């Protein structure tokens, strides 16, 4: 381990202990570590923006001999300059043009992706569970697949029923349909509870692995220090 590795490991060890100091409550040491992380992240993001976006796309084209590249580079420069007018309330309306362009393109990409990438494929997948022709192998797994499909169907309908917030016309007496809907909604509540339990277990596993990573680092650092002495 060279000198720079030692300095880096020592800083990492100290910062890890500062973050662990939150166990005794919010304190200046913990806040110092958090502010340091936020500052480093913001600084790194700014560096990435300058070296990965601004310089190669706005400046570099003018050092090349390609005339087309130079002309095309004018477009982001002009749009970026128009966007800067948003700083002044008086000239903010000028920045509406690049802003509307950004919002329109982003919305189109997001909506198109949601429909074609999630909504339609997931609906098809839910239907295809009951499509025996889509099963590539006809064996005992077909029955298991059907059971799985029934559970998914019940879970989907019951969860949707749970989020039904209808009201009777009279406001007092429930209709038979609503009584049914409430009963199915209670089944949906069970599915939702299982889902939340699954999510909680995943979050706990991720946090536990992060803790193990930090404890492993601390233990190894202490071991290396002890070996040094």
């Amino acid at each position, binding site marked *: 381990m060279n000198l720079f590795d030692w300095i880096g490991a020592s800083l990492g060890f100290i910062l890890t202990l500062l973050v662990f100091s939150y*166990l*005794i*409550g919010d304190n200046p040491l913990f806040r110092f570590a958090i502010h340091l992380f936020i500052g480093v*992240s913001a600084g*790194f*993001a700014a560096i*990435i*923006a300058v*070296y*990965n*976006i601004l*310089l*190669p*796309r706005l400046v*570099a084209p003018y050092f090349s001999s390609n005339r087309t590249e130079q002309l095309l580079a004018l477009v982001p420069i002009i749009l970026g300059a128009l966007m800067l007018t948003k700083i002044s309330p008086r000239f903010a309306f000028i920045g509406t043009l690049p802003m509307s362009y950004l919002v329109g*393109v*982003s919305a189109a*990409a*997001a909506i198109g*992706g*949601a429909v*074609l*990438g*999630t909504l339609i*494929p*997931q609906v*098809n*997948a839910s239907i*295809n*569970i009951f499509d025996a022709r*889509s099963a590539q192998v006809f064996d005992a797994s077909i029955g298991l697949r059907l059971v799985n499909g029934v559970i998914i169907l019940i879970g989907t309908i019951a969860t949707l029923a749970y989020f039904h917030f209808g009201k009777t016309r009279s406001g007092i007496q429930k209709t038979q349909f609503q009584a049914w809907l409430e009963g199915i909604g209670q089944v949906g509540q069970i599915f939702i509870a299982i*889902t939340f339990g*699954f*999510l909680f*277990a*995943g*979050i*706990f*596993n*991720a946090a*536990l*692995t*992060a*803790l*193990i*990573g*930090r*404890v*492993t680092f601390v*233990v190894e650092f202490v071991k290396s220090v002890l070996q040094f002495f």
Partner: protein
Amino acid sequence: MEEIICPHCGKPNSPSNKFCDYCLGQLKQSDEQISEAEHSEIGIGRDDLSEQTPEEYGPDWLKNLQEEHSVKGEEPIDLGDGLSTPSEMISDWMSGDEEESLTTEAGESPPGEGSQVQPFLPHDGFPEDDGLPDWLDDALLDRSEQDGFEADSRVDPAIEGSEQDALQKDPDATKPSQGKLGELESAGPLAGLKGALSPEPGITRPRKPAAYTTKLRVTATQRAHVDLLASIVEDEGHTKPLPERKAISQRHVLRWVITIILLIAISWPIVTSSQQMPFPAYEEVSAEVSRLVSQLNGNSPVLFVFDYEPGLTAEFDAATTPVMDHVISRGALLTLVSISPSGPILAERFMGLMQASHEYKSGEQYVNLGYIPGGAAGLVSFFDNPQNTLPYTLDGVPAWETSTNKGLPPLTGINEITDYEMVVLLVDDPDTARTWIEQLSPRINEPDVLTSFVLITSAQLEPIVLPYYDSSPPQVNGLVAGLRGGAVYAQINGNGDIARKYWDAFGMGTFTAALLILVGGLGYYVIPELMRSPQVQRKGK
């Protein structure tokens, strides 16, 4: 020639003057004015009395009687000079004795008007209250109120009699503010002037304003609601002192106890370097990734996307190392990108980690193209035209082949996203994962596309992305989720040093946490039940 002394300024004036030459004050008051003043004392003017006909002035019953007579064709009741009415219907004092003209309180009758004055008013002022009929009393009262006087301004007959005597002696005494004549005004717009007329008593004595109660006329329920609202509004104005927090509370102790137990549980395997716990069993979802990687040929272009936060480095190191090791062992050429600003540096760090076992050089076996700006729109741009979206590497070197540039080997033959044989997404955020899947899966699910798409995710993301893997046709071809996924992959292909190092501590930590949740849950429900006194338990039964 006898001079008249001005009652206002005290200076002598000619007897023919009606007004003072010095102060313009009135020197004499005419009889008419005196009579007017007397009538105004009781709230009724002489002109009013003379102009009103008996029909207008009399009581309702008298009017009705007269109307009945006129309807029946009988001779109308004469309430004027020729007063003719049944004696039983008219009071005695209204009889012929009262035919004389109405005289003023000053005792003088206005010339030429005697015959028109109401016959039922007395000569010498008003009689005692007992002698005045109610309807007249009310009529006088109403008229006095209409003239702006209070009902209380009616003069007591006894006092009135004495005033009448005084008026007879000195008519000028009826002038208002007589006592202040000649005085110098000390305030107001007329300050400094002498003999300014003071306002008349009728004007200076305004009627009392009607008294309206300020209390709410509400029911008891409404009153309760009003009080409640008032108390709420009042409470808002008061600052409530925060309850004193104990330096060491029960919650702190509980937190420390749980932390110590958990730290001991995970530290012990790490300190002792224990690796006794078996790896998890085979999982199809992770094995599918292994199969796809095994199909890669030498120099196959593979795109790695680093989109996770630095805080989850340990988990992604454990999950990604076996997969990356497997990919590198197949001789694939790597392209690294990210749509989060911290992604490029994480990618560089991870490749540095892999240098311990593989000599993969930047620009030769792998290339880091850095950060893709623009979110979903940026992804679409990168998928369709990667050369223009990310023209340079993270080091600022031109990455793609042009007429003047040879281009880097990992990017040779790459014109769009489907030119990669595999796309590996390392992600911890649900939104980022969904954006990648939504934009990429429709492109790679085309019949002639051979690109496979696998995910390496944090364990917290597994429930969210699993439906994309389970769907038919699958939108994601394989999944390695968290430390467990990495351990499964390492068990299949080996080279899982990090996963192996963490696995015992992970097992102990998970077991301890489950135990704490169980004990805590039991304690939360059982201990309060046991703490209840027997009496309360009996009551409950």
